[in-house]
C-alpha cells in the first residue's frame, strides 16, 4: 500500500530547552488509514502534528507527505491536507456560511464549486437551517461540526484532527464520527489525536502511543489490543505504557 506519511529520524528541539521534543522518530502511515496518535501531555504529539501540518519547521530528519518532501514542498502539501484544530478555528462573528466561504476559498476551492460544497457539507452535518446564523449563537457541538467542515471543504487526501469530538453532545459526536468514516471510505487518510480512548479504539484502524518524543507502541488497533491472546482496552494499554502515575488523559 502506498504511503500517505513517511517520517524518518525526525528530531525537534524547542529553542531554550535541553531535550528533544521529538527524538529520532520514525513512523509511516498508509493511504486510507485512520491513524490514532495518543500520548500524555508533553509527550510530543502536538509537536509532531504541528510539523506535519507545516506549523513548525523540521530541525533534523525527513518527512514525506503524499510522496512530497515537507521541507521543500510545504506550500503544495498545504493544498492536499486538511487541519481541524482542537480550538474552534472559526470566526464567531461570521455566519457558518461566511466562515466556510472564507476557509474554502483559502484552500483553493474553485468559485463555481464553493457554494455547492458548502450547502452539501452543511446538510450532511444537519445544520442547513443554521447556515446563515452567526457562530457565536451556536452550541459547542454545532461549532465542532462547522470547525470540522472548515478543514475538509477542499476534500483533502489527508486530514489531521486534534480532539474533534471533545466537549460535544452524543448527537454531534455521532454526526462527526459518521462523517469522518464516510470520508475515510472514499479513501481519505485520517490522522486523529484524542484523549477519548474508547472512541479512538472503535474509530482507528491503526494506533501509536508516543511518549518522551518517541513512539512507544505502534500497530493495527486489533493487534495492539490483543495481548497474549486476551483483548484489553486501549486505555489499559495506554496506562501500562505511560505509567499510572503520569497519566493525565
Amino acid at each position, binding site marked *: 500500500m502506498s504511503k500517505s506519511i513517511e517520517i524518518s529520524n525526525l528530531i525537534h528541539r524547542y529553542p531554550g530547552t535541553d531535550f528533544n521534543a521529538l527524538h529520532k522518530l520514525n513512523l509511516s502511515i498508509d493511504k486510507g488509514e485512520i491513524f490514532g496518535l495518543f500520548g500524555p501531555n508533553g509527550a510530543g504529539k502536538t509537536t509532531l502534528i504541528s510539523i506535519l501540518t*507545516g*506549523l513548525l519547521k523540521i530541525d533534523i530528519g525527513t518527512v514525506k507527505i503524499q510522496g512530497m518532501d515537507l521541507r521543500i514542498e510545504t506550500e503544495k502539501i498545504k493544498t492536499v491536507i486538511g*487541519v481541524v484544530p482542537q*480550538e474552534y478555528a472559526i470566526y464567531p462573528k461570521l455566519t457558518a456560511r*461566511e466562515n466556510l466561504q472564507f476557509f474554502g476559498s483559502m484552500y483553493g476551492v474553485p468559485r463555481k464549486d464553493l457554494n455547492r460544497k458548502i450547502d452539501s457539507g452543511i446538510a450532511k452535518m444537519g445544520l442547513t437551517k443554521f447556515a446563515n446564523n452567526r457562530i457565536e449563537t451556536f452550541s459547542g457541538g454545532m461549532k465542532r461540526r462547522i470547525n470540522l467542515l472548515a478543514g475538509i471543504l477542499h476534500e483533502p487526501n489527508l486530514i489531521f484532527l486534534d480532539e474533534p469530538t471533545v466537549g460535544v453532545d452524543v448527537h454531534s459526536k455521532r454526526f462527526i464520527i459518521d462523517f469522518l468514516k464516510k470520508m475515510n471510505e472514499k479513501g481519505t487518510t485520517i490522522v486523529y489525536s484524542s484523549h477519548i480512548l474508547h472512541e479512538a479504539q472503535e474509530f482507528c484502524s491503526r494506533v501509536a502511543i508516543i511518549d518522551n518524543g518517541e513512539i512507544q507502541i505502534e500497530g493495527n488497533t486489533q493487534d495492539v489490543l490483543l495481548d497474549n491472546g486476551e483483548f484489553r482496552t486501549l486505555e489499559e494499554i495506554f496506562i501500562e505504557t505511560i505509567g499510572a502515575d503520569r497519566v493525565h488523559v
Partner: protein
Amino acid sequence: MFKIYHAILKELRLLRRDLLGVAIIFLMPIVLIITITFIQDSIENNVEGTLPVLIANGDDGDLSKTIINNLKDNNQLKIITELENERLTQEVGVNLLKLGQQKILIVIPEDFSNYIQNKTDAHINRLLSEVMPDIEEADLSIFEQETKEVFIFFDPAVGSNVRNALKNAIDNMISKLETQAIYKTFENEFEADFSYITEEPLIQFQEKSITTNHENITPNAVQHNLPAWTLFAIFFIVIPLSINIVKEKNQGTYIRLKTLPFSSFEFIISKILVYLFVCMVQFYVMLLVSVYLFPIIGLPALEIEGRFFLLSVVALFSGLAAIGFGVLIGTISKTHEQAAPFGATSVVILAAVGGLWFPVYAMPETMQMIARISPMNWGLEGFYDVLLRESNLLQLSPYLLLLFAFFLLNMTIALIYEKKFNQI
C-alpha cells in the same frame, strides 16, 4: 485574487459586525473636528465677552478710565468694574479669585492718573532743564514717593497662554498711554499740538500669507483643524487594526490560517487594503463635513477646489503609515489589553510630538527635532502644503516618501518579529 477577494470580504464582514467600533472610527473624528473648529473659530472671530476680567479701580483720573475703555474694546474680554452696583475693591476681587468664582483681577491704585502724569512731567522737565538752561529746574520729589503699580491677579487655573496674552495686551496699551502722556507734557511745555505724531504709528505692518502662486489666502480655523484632526482620526485606525490582529492570533483561527495555502503576504495585504479603505472613507467623510456641513452650522467651509487629488494622496500615504504602525503593534502585542492602551497612548504621543495640538515652530529646539521624525508631522506638513501653500505633487513628494518609508519599516519589523517570535 479569489483568495484575496475572500480575505477582504471576511475583514469587511468582521468590521461590519463591530458596529460600535466602526461608529467610533467615523463619529469620533467628526465630533472632534466640529467641536474644535467651533471653539477655534469663536476665538478667532472674537465672540463677545468670553473671558471675564475684574477691575478694582481705585483711581478717578482719566488714565484709569482710558485703560478700562481700552480693555472694554477687546471683545474677548468681559470687563467687570462693579458688583451689585458697588465699585469693586481689591479685597472683594481677591476673595472671588480665591473661591475660584473669577479668574482675573486687575487692580489700579488710588490716584494712579495723577501719579503717572506727575512722574511724566518730572521726567520731561528734568530732560528739558538739562538741555535748555532757561527752563526752571524740575521738581524731583515725585521719585521719592512710593511707586504706584498696576497689579494683575490670576486664578492658578488660568493657563500661561491666557496670562501672557493679557499681560502683552496691557503692556502694549501702557506703552501707548506712556507715549501719549509724554507728548501731552511736551505740548503743555511748548504750547503746541503734537497729536499728529501719535495719530498714525511710525511702523506699520500688514499680515500676508505666502503661497506658491503668490495669492494672499488667509487660513481659517477649518484649514488649520481639518489636517490635524483628520490625521488624528486616520492614526486611530491603529487601535481597531492592532486589536483585530491580536484577536485573530488568540483565536484558533490563527492556527488554521497558518496551515492554509495562503501566504502571510496575501493575508496582510487583505488587511492593509480593508483598513486603507476605512481610512480613506474616514477622510472623505471629514472632507464632506468640512465642505458641506460647516457652512450650514455657521462655520467657514473648507476650500478644496483644485486640491482634492493631492489631499487624497496625502491621506492615502498617511493611512499607509498608520496601518504599518497598527500591524506592528498588533504583531508585537500578546493580548488585547496590551494592544488597546499601547495603541491609544502611542497615537496621542505621536499627535502631540507631531504638532497636531501645538505648533512645532513654537516648540523647544529638541522637540522640533523629534517632531521632524514624527510620521504625523510629515502628514500634517503634507496637508498644509496642499491646503495653505498650494504645493504640487513634486513638492509634496518628500513627505509622501517618508510616510511610505515609515510604513515599510513597520511592516518589515512586524514580519521579522512574526517569523522569529510568533511561531506556534
